[in-house]
């Protein structure tokens, strides 16, 4: 590519060359591809179809010629000065104008353009069209594409400031006259550094000194590779924060605060999580170390973490992530989240329960676990969230953390009308198992929901919560339990036996084997439950009772007693 003057206009050829129509068709396909690039995302079938169309048109063209050179005017592309493509109806959006306005006056497309160059070409046009500031042009974009089969000639746009300044430096030509003969001069000028001499030294003639050894070449290549493969942002962030710490001038610090605030947004929008996390961590370090720091600057840096943890900001980020295929290293995301403050927990938990992105969910799971463990208060508060899913997740995590601080929040939830929520609260309380939790659980024994009663009774048994024995005894005697399902009966009888031990035998035996004429005979199911509970006790007294029941007339009772005696209870 090179700057050049405009191609000649007003050519003599008027007849339509057969090649012209093929080129025309190719340009039309190319223009369609340009528009598709603009309108559709890369994963849209229209996008791929348009590129395939342009490719096919180019291949058709290469059947006729190996290269074409086209001129550019404000409204047309020309071939041998004959207009073959115009988009006058598209005004400022027209392809020829896009080329023309940036100074491109002719271009050449060669066979092979459709392979590597075409997507870059379309990308460059897209970049110029979509730029907000209008400070890019097609020439700089094309240059960066480093095309193999596309070249162009352009004119420098006027008013670039490229004209006069600098030109005066380029005075040239050898002067004439006489100078001192070197043979006559003696004194030498001062030299750069100590010990240097202007006289050529033998060592200087030894060119081998300057041969790069293989390991030196490898070092250079390796360094370049690392330089261009690495992420420069953390180094830039470190440079800013080093300056913030070392420069005590408030105006400088003020400027850096502003830069950091914008920089963080740039990083977040670019999904640069590691650097954002680094920035947050190092801002904290900078505020703790910097001398003569104004309170306003301390606050501004502190605000950075608040801003990123703010639910409104974080929700935006999470929504973007939900629709994005996460790129490695994904762990950066966890690092970032765990650098956030407690305000981040709510949106993170909320998103965790809603997310359909399995990759993101796994990362959020880890992040929430880590963040929750250091922000239990915030987690507890989430138990009372209006969002049921969030509340459930918070209760699950409170249970996992076995945090007694959650009990008061869970107790409140038990008053809710949702069976699901109350059930989750019971599970969490059971996991916590603290005396406070058990007291709350005891209330669950009276819950109207069977599942909750079951969970509560099971938890009391598991935790050997003996204060509940009398309540269980009452429940067993109470018809409500006896009228319940066999599962519930079994649970209550088992729990009673487990907690009361041998002292449970009289009551259980009285239910299993009614004595006296007036004694009430329980239904076979209830008696079977008592048998099973006695079996679990396994004491001699309990076994005696079971042996007596082994010949009961009721087959259900007989069978339960026999099983309990065999240890199958």
């Amino acid at each position: 590519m090179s700057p050049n003057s405009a191609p000649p206009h007003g050519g003599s050829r008027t007849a339509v060359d057969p090649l012209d129509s093929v080129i025309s068709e190719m340009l039309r396909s190319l223009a369609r591809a340009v528009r598709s690039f603009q309108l559709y995302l890369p994963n849209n079938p229209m996008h791929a179809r348009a590129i395939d169309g342009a490719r096919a048109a180019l291949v058709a063209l290469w059947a006729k010629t190996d290269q074409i050179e086209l001129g550019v005017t404000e409204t047309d592309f020309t071939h041998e000065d004959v207009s073959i493509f115009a988009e006058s109806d598209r005004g400022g959006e027209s392809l020829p104008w896009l080329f023309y306005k940036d100074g491109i006056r002719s271009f050449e497309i060669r066979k092979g353009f459709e392979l590597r160059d075409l997507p870059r070409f379309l990308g460059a046009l897209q970049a110029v069209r979509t730029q907000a500031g209008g400070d890019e042009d097609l020439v700089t974009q094309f240059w960066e594409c480093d095309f193999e089969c596309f070249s162009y000639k352009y004119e420098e746009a006027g008013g670039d400031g490229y004209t006069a300044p600098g030109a005066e430096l380029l005075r040239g030509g050898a002067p004439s006259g006489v100078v001192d003969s070197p043979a006559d001069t003696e004194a030498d000028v001062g030299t750069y550094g100590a010990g240097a001499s202007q006289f050529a030294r033998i060592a200087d003639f030894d060119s081998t000194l300057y041969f790069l050894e293989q390991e030196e070449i490898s070092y250079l290549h390796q360094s370049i590779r690392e330089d261009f493969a690495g992420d420069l942002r953390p180094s830039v962030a470190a440079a800013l924060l080093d300056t913030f710490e070392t420069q005590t001038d408030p105006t400088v610090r003020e400027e850096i605060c502003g830069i950091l605030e914008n920089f963080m947004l740039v990083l977040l929008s670019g999904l640069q999580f590691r650097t954002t996390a680094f920035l947050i961590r190092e801002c904290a370090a900078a505020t703790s170390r910097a001398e003569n720091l104004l309170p306003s600057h301390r606050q501004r840096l502190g605000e950075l973490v608040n801003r990123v943890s703010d639910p409104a900001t974080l929700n935006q980020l999470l929504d973007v992530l939900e629709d994005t295929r996460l790129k490695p290293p994904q762990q950066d995301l966890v690092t970032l989240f765990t650098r956030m403050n407690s305000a981040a927990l709510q949106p993170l938990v909320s998103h965790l329960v809603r997310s359909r992105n399995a990759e993101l969910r796994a990362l959020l799971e880890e992040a929430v676990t880590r963040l929750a463990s250091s922000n239990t208060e915030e987690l507890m508060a989430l138990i009372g969230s209006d969002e049921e899913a969030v509340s459930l997740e918070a209760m699950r995590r409170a249970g996992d953390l076995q945090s007694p601080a959650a009990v008061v929040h869970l107790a409140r939830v038990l008053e809710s009308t949702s069976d699901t929520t109350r059930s989750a609260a019971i599970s969490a309380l059971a996991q916590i198992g603290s005396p406070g939790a058990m007291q709350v659980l005891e209330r669950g024994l009276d819950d109207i929901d069977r599942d909750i009663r079951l969970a509560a009774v099971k938890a009391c048994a598991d935790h050997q919560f003996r204060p509940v024995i009398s309540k269980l005894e009452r429940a067993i005697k109470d018809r409500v339990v006896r009228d319940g399902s066999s599962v519930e009966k079994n649970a209550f009888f088992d729990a009673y036996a487990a907690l009361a031990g041998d002292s449970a035998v009289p009551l259980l035996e009285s239910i299993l084997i009614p004595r006296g004429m007036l004694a009430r005979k329980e239904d076979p199911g209830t008696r079977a439950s008592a048998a099973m509970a006695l079996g679990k006790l396994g004491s001699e007294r309990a076994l005696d009772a079971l042996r007596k029941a082994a010949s009961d007339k009721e087959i259900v009772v007989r069978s339960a007693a026999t099983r309990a005696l065999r240890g199958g209870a």
Partner: protein
Amino acid sequence: MSAVTADEGERQETANTRRAGRALIVAIHAATRVMKLYPPEHQAVQKSLDELALAAVDSRGVDAELEVRVHGEFIFVNGTRLRLDLSNYASFGRVLELFRAAGVGVLRVLREATSREWFSLLTLVTTVGANSDADPDELARRLQAAGVDVFETSADAEAEEDVEEREAAKAAARRTYAQSVALTKDVINSVRMGRVPSARKIKRAVQTIVDQVLTEEASLIGLTTLREYDEYTYTHSVNVCIFAVALGKRIGMTKLQLYELGVGALMHDIGKSRVPTDLLQKTTPLDEDDWRRITAHPWLGVLTLFQLRGQQELPYRAMLVAHEHHMRRDFSGYPRVIRPRQIAMTSKIVAVADAYDAATSRRSYQTKPYPPSAVLQEMRDNPRRGLDPVVVKAFITLLGIYPSGTLVVLDTFELAVVLAANPNPDMLSRPRVVIVSDGRGNLLQPPIESDLAATGPDGQFARTIIKTADPERYGIRVSDYVV
């Protein structure tokens, strides 16, 4: 689909030609080296000639013909320009030198040549090349006399075209240089006035410099000898950009890497636009406060680059270069480093280019520039300067021991200005020069270009540098000759 395949095939063919061509040049170089060390019947000579013959067959196999053409600083095999990199530049330089000395512009291998025929050719090329007044047809005559008809040699058919091309390249280089200086001035002044400079202009300037360095770096490097006091701030940035890009090219950076390096180099002192001009131009010694304000320019550069709008992406590499270009390897330079960091290679390159250009320029507080060769020597020998020694070494291979623009005194007592380093790495102390005055001090009109690697009939070098000299002492403005 078939057209696609055919095109891929073509590309593959070019790559094969390049690979085979590089192997051929390396084999020619290896054979000439071994032939210098051992007698013809020695096993090592035979082996290297056999390898050369095979390499030539390989090159012919790719293209069914073999033509080696030396043109300017480039070698073409079957019309394909071979790419120079660190792993082959020594061989390239020596073969270029060998061919040039013997007046060979084009070597055609008409059919498969035997090891013996290659031996004859290389012997004659070396012999003819040893005579500085070699007639371009001499080699052809001697080959004919020796009955070797498998090779056809001729002077570079495009010699005249060369001159035109070189002149065109020089003109393009001058245009690029002037535009870049103007752009830098514009950028720095924009920042001074609180305006936002155009990112497009910066891009365009660097892209042009990269293009120029990739096609013909010598002309642009020659322009760095323009060290105008008044324009120092601007020419310095452009010079550093040119040196950095040329060095980056030498150490194998890609075009886009060179571009990023170039932007960093051009903008490395952008922070100075926020240092008061009178301080930058102060000729009296700097006090502590002055020094503190001047040494702020690296971090001021980072802040300034953050203010550049119109960037699709913030220029992170340029920020790092601005921040790190005065950091020493042990971080004893400035600005002070608190967080652990590794100085980027691009910053190290710019640091070397910056140190060299600054020391060899006349500035407000440095009225007498240091001689380029002394500067290079100091950069090489003084570890306290904190430059990366490998980068310095690579820089010296780029500029030669006597860089372009150095005024030298020859053993004939002639004064000469160095034009360009010798591409042969064995001859770094024998650059291409322009002799500006005769032994009695008469300025030559026109001055005479001379290759100090050229030898006389006795096999001795015709001219040798005995010392460098201060151009001001002789009232010589080196840029008049180089530019």
